[in-house]
């Protein structure tokens, strides 16, 4: 009996070694899986809700994922207009911190920052303008008024040309808001062609740049 037990000792040692190695490998794999798992799903959802709310409340009207500079987001405005932000949500845009805060959840979104081009060429009231931005935003049709200030449904804008090249056209009339990417370096000549002479359209040129909106929040 004693001889048999002693002969099994090396086998037992090898067995323990194998089991320990397997346990180590298993813990390593499990640790990696745990580290990779999304453990902040609820907090991430909250952060995304805050980001969506922020863009809805502070975003450029009629645009998706766009903010007009200056952005106007601060702690009190955010908490008042985006209740999901609570007291802890933090917001940064590019390198700038807009609202101090922290949280386990994080939402990142690429947004467009529209900076109005300063200067006297922002108005398209006379149907013509020279602009030097990278995007022109035109509000057409719905704002058409006659010379005395009353609305005139018979007037409409059919053509918009940039540097003589048609970029928008509709024989029935262009209505609504349009963003026109302006080609190359400015300045560019934008010509809005109304059917009447008294139509007024509003237009503004923007310089457009991208920035990452980061929102942190807790569940």
């Amino acid at each position, binding site marked *: 009996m004693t001889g048999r037990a002693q002969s099994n000792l090396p086998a037992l040692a*090898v067995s323990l070694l194998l089991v320990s190695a397997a346990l180590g490998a*298993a813990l390593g794999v499990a640790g990696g899986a745990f580290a990779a798992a999304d453990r902040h799903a609820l907090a991430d959802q909250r952060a995304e809700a805050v980001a969506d709310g922020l863009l809805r409340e502070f975003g450029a009207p009629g645009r998706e994922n766009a903010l007009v500079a200056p952005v106007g987001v601060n702690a009190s405005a955010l908490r008042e207009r985006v209740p999901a932000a609570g007291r802890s949500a933090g917001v940064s845009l590019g390198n700038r911190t807009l609202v101090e805060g922290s949280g386990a959840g994080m939402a990142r979104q690429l947004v467009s920052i529209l900076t109005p081009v300063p200067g006297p060429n922002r108005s398209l009231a006379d149907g013509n303008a020279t602009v030097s931005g990278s995007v022109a935003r035109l509000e057409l049709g719905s704002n058409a008024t006659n010379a005395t200030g009353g609305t005139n449904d018979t007037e409409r804008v059919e053509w918009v040309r940039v540097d003589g090249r048609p970029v928008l056209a509709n024989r029935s009339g262009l209505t609504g808001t349009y963003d026109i990417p302006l080609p190359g370096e400015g300045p560019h000549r934008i010509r809005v062609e109304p059917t009447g002479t008294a139509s007024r359209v509003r237009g503004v040129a923007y310089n457009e740049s991208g920035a990452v909106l980061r929102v942190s929040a807790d569940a």
Partner: protein
Amino acid sequence: MRRGQLSVSVLEAGIGMLLLLAVASTLAAGVPVPDEREARLDGYAADGLTILRDGNPALGSAEPAALGERLDALAPPGTRARLETTGGTVGPSVPSGVAVGKARTTTANGTVTLWLWYG
């Protein structure tokens, strides 16, 4: 002739190892390891396409040069982008061996694809 005998301890150890590795493999397989950089770039690319299409839904017919300049201005700092439309392609070639985000959308003029990567 003497038959070879496998030690019961070694047998048990082998079964134990298999059990442990099976549990660990199940755990690892059940939790896919995401490429965080690529997922983030995918999101940026999708956002970028949304911005590019906003106000210019027929992106496929836009002037490639103008689109390229707009794309350069919109790409997050430290990233590069390539846009493929039916009207042409703008931006450098997509490199291999790096995390690349990709988004695709269909316009009235065809499919538009945007790639984004750090570089």
